[in-house]
């Protein structure tokens, strides 16, 4: 596979790992956070943590949209299927996320019409094929995915599809990073910046991390060579006392991002005043809500979507793990009450959640 296999070349991986070892061969710890859940998944999938010297530590960050989704939003989404007979559609990632009365898959087992889609356009297509049923698309994701939802809503309007709406749980990445940086227990040296979010927002928005917080950021791709090169670039910055935003993933990420995507976001969405992030609490200006002119395709306006507040069990330490303050294994419930088969917190549900990734590597 082109643009994939070249970045999995064993010889080049060996050299990159050697370079990291060379750069890290001084008497200090390097604590690096990979923000994005996709990076967490890639690190474990490719076994990259095995190539790092012991003084280079990777801490898993909060960039996992399933992990930060409050359970109450899950219940709200499912209520649309339960109480209004709507067809509930979403990505595979969402299918095993527990609400109070079970996951979407468990609801499907009880006869609720739950369907998995690969693209929001597929959900719109289901609505077109079933004009007598209402189809709700339960949207999750950061800025990588939100433009696709936006364009789907635009298409729904252009085609005049009346039986389709979106329940938006889209969140933005910068407030999550800021929550990590502002955490009093934060002891991070640098950040592996999210690669695909950056194809939309560009590399410029991370400047505040370098300038105000004096931490280096390297926007990085997802193949083994990308991650190793990104880590090497961070180590180089740290050794040289620099704090800059660098772009390792230049083959798809530009400084200014994708203009049509940013326009689509602006056209369809506006920032909510505040939104509750599971584990991180209420964060202002951090989530996307559909604008009034698209009200007909906004599930929150079309239906009386309950604001359900479901608190995590007190013992669950999801927030601290999300912020990188605790390792998954340090949470009291880890591998005891909370396992991938019986998850208590969302970090164990999502395959890219820090806890699930950690657990599967035991």
């Amino acid at each position, binding site marked *: 596979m082109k643009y994939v296999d070249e970045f999995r070349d064993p010889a080049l991986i060996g*050299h990159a790992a050697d370079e990291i070892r060379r750069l890290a061969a001084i008497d200090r710890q390097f604590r690096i956070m990979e923000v994005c859940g996709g990076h967490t998944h890639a690190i474990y999938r490719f076994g990259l943590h095995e190539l790092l010297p012991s003084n280079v530590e990777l801490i898993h960050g909060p960039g996992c949209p399933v992990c930060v989704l409050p359970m109450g939003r899950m219940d709200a989404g499912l209520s649309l299927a339960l109480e209004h007979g709507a067809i509930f559609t979403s990505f595979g990632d969402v299918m095993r996320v527990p609400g109070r009365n079970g996951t979407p898959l468990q609801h499907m087992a009880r006869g609720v019409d739950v369907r998995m889609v690969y693209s929001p356009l597929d959900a719109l297509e289901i609505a077109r094929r079933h004009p007598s049923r209402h189809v709700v698309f339960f949207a999750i994701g*950061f800025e990588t995915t939100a433009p696709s939802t936006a364009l789907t809503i635009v298409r729904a309007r252009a085609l005049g599809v009346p039986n389709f709406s979106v329940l938006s749980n889209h969140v933005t990445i910068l407030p999550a990073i800021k929550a990590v940086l502002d955490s009093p227990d934060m002891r991070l040296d640098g950040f592996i910046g999210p690669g695909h979010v950056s194809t939309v927002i560009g590399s410029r928005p991370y400047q505040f991390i370098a300038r105000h917080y004096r931490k280096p950021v390297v926007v990085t791709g*997802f193949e083994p060579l990308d991650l190793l090169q990104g880590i090497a670039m961070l180590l180089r910055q740290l050794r040289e006392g620099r704090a800059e935003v660098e772009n390792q993933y230049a*083959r798809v990420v530009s400084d200014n991002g994708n203009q*049509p995507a940013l326009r689509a976001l602006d056209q369809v969405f506006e920032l909510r005043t505040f939104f509750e992030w599971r584990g991180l609490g209420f964060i202002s200006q951090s989530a996307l809500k559909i604008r009034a002119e698209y009200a007909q395709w906004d599930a929150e306006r079309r239906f009386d979507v309950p604001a359900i507040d479901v608190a995590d069990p007190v013992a669950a330490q999801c927030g601290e793990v999300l912020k990188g303050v605790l390792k998954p294994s340090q949470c009291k419930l880890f591998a005891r009450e909370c396992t991938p088969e019986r998850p208590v917190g969302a970090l164990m549900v999502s395959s890219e959640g820090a806890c699930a990734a950690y657990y599967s590597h035991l």
Partner: protein
Amino acid sequence: MCLAIPGQIVSLGPEPHLAVVEISKVRRQVNVDLLQGEALAAGDWVLIHVGFAMTRISDREAVEQLRLLAMLGEDEQAMRELEGYSFDEIR
């Protein structure tokens, strides 16, 4: 939110916002609205996420990146020769 995959455009159309891409002998129709304003052609490589083409893939940047990575190996080789295999101190 991060799973995006490179694919090659096989054909444009049947409508202006659509194209067919191929990834490892698998084909899928994708929406190319996020690339409006760019002149797309069959043979171009794009990054695909949830049924949308997100950006073009720059071959120039990819080649440059691989060149830098290959140089790491050469640098190492050069260093070895310079320092006469006395690596244990810095490794």
